[in-house]
């Protein structure tokens, strides 16, 4: 199964993860 997020954010938004990272629910995905 897969969860896809599509969202609008200011151009200053930065992802804190990269392709291939193992993540846990609640972990920071990115921030403005």
């Amino acid at each position: 199964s897969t969860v896809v997020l599509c969202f609008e954010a200011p151009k200053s938004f930065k992802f804190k993860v990269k392709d291939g990272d193992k993540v846990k629910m609640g972990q920071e995905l990115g921030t403005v």
Partner: protein
Amino acid sequence: AHAGGPNSVMKWAVLTGVTIVLGTIILRSQSPNGSSRADEEEGDSAKLKRKPRVQIFNNDWIFFCYSTLPLNAISRLWGQVNSLDLPVWMRPWGFKCYSYLFGVNLDEMEDPDLRHYSNLSEFFYRNIQPNARPIYPGHNAIICPSDGKVLQIGIIDSDSGEIEQVKGLTYSIRDFLGTHSQPSVSRSQSTVDLVPDEEKHKEFARVNNFRLSDPSGNESEHYIEVKNEGDKTVEESKPTMSKTVGLLNELSLNPDLYGKPYNEPKDTQLFFAVIYLAPGDYHHFHSPVNWVCKIRRHFPGDLFSVAPYFQRNFPNLFVLNERVALLGNWKHGFFSMTPVGATNVGSIKLNFDKELKTNVKRKRHSEPHACYEATYGNASRILGGMPLTKGEELGGFMLG
């Protein structure tokens, strides 16, 4: 053949002939110009579905044969088999074996006694201890909605509206999330009524800078007032309509159905992130931010595997698979979260929408609805949708 005499030669000839005829029919039905006149009248959704299959066919025989399997029926059967109760003596070592194979972390389970899970479906949909997943605080941060592996992150090109499945392979956000003007949509109003919690929602809106809908419950325009710390609010600098706004209006809010067109604060972009959950992962999903969900679009589709191999090679996989698109807005504008089903987990559950049923047997020859859309406008009059707080459990994926 000689030894078997003339009738076995006849049998071989008939068999070969039938195979050639069938193969030709299947090839013609897959090729775009082979579509008959009646097909032309079909809605976009049918063309949309056939187009990806043609790509699959062009792409690879393996996928072509794979796409002819009755995966939805297999998924339902898989769910039924795994919902058969196991004898108590079998549960501990059975679930330990599954955990060993798929890397399940048994220490974090809310109920560690394996005998309490009567079948694999219950074990698969286990809960974990609340403190097992601390929620990252950050007011402007987006958290991971589930356990898993990040397969793809990036920016959505506002011109084409395309999301990269992997390098060189893309799918359209319009096809993935649906548009309010797409053909064959069946609409319903969710019966959830949260009016008694309006005071709480006022606080929710204040904390998140959401504009309240006017008390009569009409949709105010979807203008998100974002207070920039310290300097003037976006409202004073009237937003200019950027390229993104057309795409957002197509995707989410139908002006004559859900209120005024979507206005957006300036200098924003559309981002996406794809998280794949492996069979051993905790399979509930949570809210990544504080947001208001206004629309749910359920696309009853196929249930191809979404394992990384298929995501790398199967074009338009996300547009073909059964999925539930949740659309709304957060403090910085449009927000959507879409759980996508797969063969082993066809059942997508939403805690706040009991009417949603996925992976149900579709009546044969019924018009394949492009999507079943429900709106949550009456859930909270002042917010115009379902308020969801960061870290709140929204639902999950169940076997079958």
